[in-house]
């Protein structure tokens, strides 16, 4: 058994810490709330080799695993960074599973940037769905037999500035397929909802030309759950940042003649952040392991990690603000920037609700199998 970071993974993590420490992304997240553009991190991602993390070596990438990408995303969350990686990494993963490998070298190298509109794989007898622009869920965009893409998806990450756009679509027979679209013909509407630290947009396709890259049920399912795991890792980074901030303030700030961290009422809330961080980290390991070696457990593992991570980020951000007292709730303090990231994140890509529902679905099914085996 080896369930610890390898040396290489330790280096990857350290490199991400260092690369992201050179740009004040937290200040950038605050300024973005006033309409300033986000700091450009694509050159950082490119230089660090993150753009090719999930691209096979034969196609010019690093050929690494989802878990390695999660280590980078954790550091992005910790610094409120937006490097466009969730969309790009999920898109390159899908491309590496279809017959469009010729696109990969430029994406791996970072010369071009990819994004993807992901759809939720169906549970029970529903179809493939995306986030609806007005909230709730809508059918995935449809790709007609003559190659026209029609439909819309709301609240998508990382679309802005993409050179290559993939869409999880359904064909005339309601079968899932991967559609390749020129981002220039899609209507991409940047939006801000609560959090401005990551680019968010609605996208609409009005019968635009699209290329079908093969049927993609397996690749799209894998990409959906890997994206869940990447979001979980990003949220874990938020939890870690809240833990660091809370501990440091509780040691410094004095009240009634002693540091507030010496009071059990404060200390135990901070330890609860640590507990959430540990729980989330363990489930992120599980998700990374499943992505790599247990595909039949990926839906459970990634959904469990996502569910735990978003709940943890919600608790950690609220608690960090409370530990700081009134100052924690001011515009100048960083607390609300992380809280905003957590509040929006828990609603994206199915959100914490879908993740929980999928955990229930998977574990109920396993309980049925176990009970049936016992009955025999």
């Amino acid at each position, binding site marked *: 058994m080896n369930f610890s970071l390898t040396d290489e993974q330790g280096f990857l993590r350290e490199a991400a810490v260092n690369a992201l420490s050179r740009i004040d992304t937290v200040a950038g997240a605050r300024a973005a709330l006033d309409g300033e553009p986000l700091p450009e991190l694509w050159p950082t991602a490119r230089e660090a080799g993150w753009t090719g993390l999930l691209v096979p070596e034969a196609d010019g990438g690093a050929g690494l695993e989802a878990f390695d990408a999660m280590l980078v995303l954790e550091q992005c969350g910790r610094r409120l960074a937006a490097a466009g990686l969730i969309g790009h990494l999920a898109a390159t993963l899908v491309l590496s599973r279809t017959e469009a490998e010729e696109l990969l070298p430029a994406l791996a190298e970072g010369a071009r940037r990819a994004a993807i509109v992901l759809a939720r794989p169906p549970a029970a007898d529903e179809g493939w769905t995306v986030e609806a622009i007005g909230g709730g869920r809508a059918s995935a965009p449809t790709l007609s037999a003559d190659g026209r893409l029609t439909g819309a998806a709301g609240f998508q990450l990382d679309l802005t500035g993409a050179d290559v756009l993939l869409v999880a679509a359904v064909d005339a027979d309601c079968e899932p397929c991967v559609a390749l679209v020129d981002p220039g013909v899609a209507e991409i509407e940047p939006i801000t909802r609560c959090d401005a630290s990551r680019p968010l947009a609605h996208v609409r396709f009005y019968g635009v030309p699209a290329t079908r890259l093969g049927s993609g049920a397996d690749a799209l399912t894998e990409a959906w759950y890997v994206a869940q795991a990447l979001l979980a890792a990003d949220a874990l980074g938020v939890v870690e940042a809240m833990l660091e901030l809370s501990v440091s303030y509780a040691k410094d700030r004095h009240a009634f003649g002693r540091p507030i961290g010496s009071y059990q009422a404060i200390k*135990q809330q901070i330890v609860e952040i640590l507990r959430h961080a540990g729980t989330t980290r363990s489930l992120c390991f599980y998700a990374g392991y499943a992505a790599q070696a247990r595909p039949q457990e990926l839906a459970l593992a990634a959904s469990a990690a996502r569910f735990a991570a978003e709940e943890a980020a919600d608790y950690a951000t609220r608690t960090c603000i409370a530990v700081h007292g009134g100052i924690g709730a001011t515009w100048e303090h960083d607390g609300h920037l992380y809280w905003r990231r957590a509040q929006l994140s828990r609603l994206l890509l199915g959100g914490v609700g879908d993740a929980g529902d999928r955990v229930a679905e998977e574990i109920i099914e396993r309980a049925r199998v176990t009970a049936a085996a016992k009955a025999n």
Partner: protein
Amino acid sequence: MNLDDTPTQAEFRARARAWLAEHRHESPPQVRGLHVEDPAPYRVWQGELAQAGLVGVTWPVEYGGGGLGPSEEMIAADEIARAGCAQIVDHIAIGELGPTLIAYGTEEQKQRYVGLMLHGEEGWCQLFSEPAAGSDLAGITTRARVNDCGWVLNGQKVWTTLAQFADFGLLLARTDPDVPKHRGLTMFIVPMNAPGVTVRPLRLMSGSAPFNEIFLDDVQLAPDAVIGPVDGGWGVSITTLMYERLMALSAFEHLAPSPEALLEPLLGSPALNDGNVRRRIAELTVDRLALRYTAFRALSDLEGGRMPGPESGLGKIGVVEAGRKAAALISETLGPDALAGEWGELAAEMPGMRSAGGTEEILRNTIGERVLGLPPEPRLDKDVPFSELART
């Protein structure tokens, strides 16, 4: 990252599996938790497991152990469970007390005790907690005084698993009350059949009596009953508690119901389609799954020669939460009948479990101070002789 066996681990697993396939019919029935009505058949079974190298897997070879790592120990427990057999009954002895004796005992003591312990021929219990000293373990008042024949014990212990069936207990007592509390403690071996030792079952709110109270009235011990240095018992107890923490990592995985088992009573209920019920299922499943993968991370650290930090103890909180949430969901779904059966018992165990092995609050305080470096509460008992402290 992998959960695969190394070639030597695979070989160990294959040997364990083959042996268990052949001997599984000799096992007494599996039990939930740690407690049995009559340990005799379980001790015989433990002896057989020991012959097969499945007990004391991490103990040194010279004391009858396997000299292997925590992964092999988990493999042994996995294979025993997989074969439908009972786990080691004296697992507190094997996991904590034996390793403490091996670390601190004299060669004579080790030769006398640990082999018989390993093979289930002599049962052991742990005599640390007292009615007025649990979380604050160094505040114990059981007193050991020197006399012409050795030591005389007086006091009371509590929360003692399997004491009614134990031949020996490892006991922490105060030998010097006139120094600060951590400095005047000594560890002893107590024969449980010695005159003056009374064992009384302690009935819990669930109705069962898995623990005991132990009364010690002028119990005479020989001079060689001391384990480790006189007045150095605190260090010995820290070692025992460290082994307890390591054991708890994997033990919970085998003792606590699996997420699938927690859902079994609900299968077939239309409530499983209810969104709120599904959300609650997700919450308890996530709590329970996190324990498993936290244990894997900690075991992996151990394999790599890194000691898992005290924060791994936070896993207990999640297990208790998962059990409480499952019991509540099951009784709300199935109605009051569910409170009468197995799940009602589980529900009635959870409030007390919060304090098992140290209260949640002391666990959080310790971790806040030792892991996060948060400052301690001002303490009134530091550098003050124990005899001058306010006590109840």
